[in-house]
């Protein structure tokens, strides 16, 4: 079976990993309370989605 000839140096490994980045979730503001919320999700502070109240949050 073919195998790597050389050990991958830490530098090479880490250089490859410089492109591994986390992206921030896309957020929007709630049309009802103006709070920051995830897009296509119900608002976690007021329970509104798509301009309508879906439920009343417990706290």
């Amino acid at each position, binding site marked *: 079976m073919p195998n790597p000839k050389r050990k991958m140096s830490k530098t090479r490994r880490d250089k490859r990993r410089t492109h591994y980045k986390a992206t921030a979730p896309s957020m929007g503001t709630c049309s009802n309370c103006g709070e920051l919320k995830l897009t296509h*999700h119900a608002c*976690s502070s007021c329970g509104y989605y798509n301009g309508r109240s*879906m439920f009343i949050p417990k706290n």
Partner: protein
Amino acid sequence: MRHRVRGRKLKRTASHRAALLKNLSAALIKAKRIKTTLAKAKELRTFVEPLITKARVGDLHSHKQIMDLIKDKDTVKELMSNVIPTVGDRPGGYTRVVKLGRRLGDAAEMAMIELVDFNEVANAKAAANKEKKSAKAESKKKKNEVEDANVVEETTSK
């Protein structure tokens, strides 16, 4: 290849999956709104919606077929006596899934699934909006009539 293979396995065996859907649908019919993972909520739709349509037939055969799937007398009773009359003649689309964000612990995407006709909060708002709209249209109509009357008066005074 799994091209066009429908449905989610939910990491369960066929019998485990059937039991899960039976329990979830019983919970939904009893509580009208449940919180579960997004995948389960979406899978539940394809299970409960045909069930409700089937329950509408209301004869002994459909009753037995539903009993065979849910296997709980109280739930079937609730479905037949309470859910079916409230749903009325809605042409499908009895449920609504709304995403809620990720769960702490395993970061699973959570969702709320509910029976559309039982959401008092959303339905009350929609009804209020409808009333407002019709009231607006009415006042607009009246305004136009008043203006017409004014025009008539002007022409007669001259």
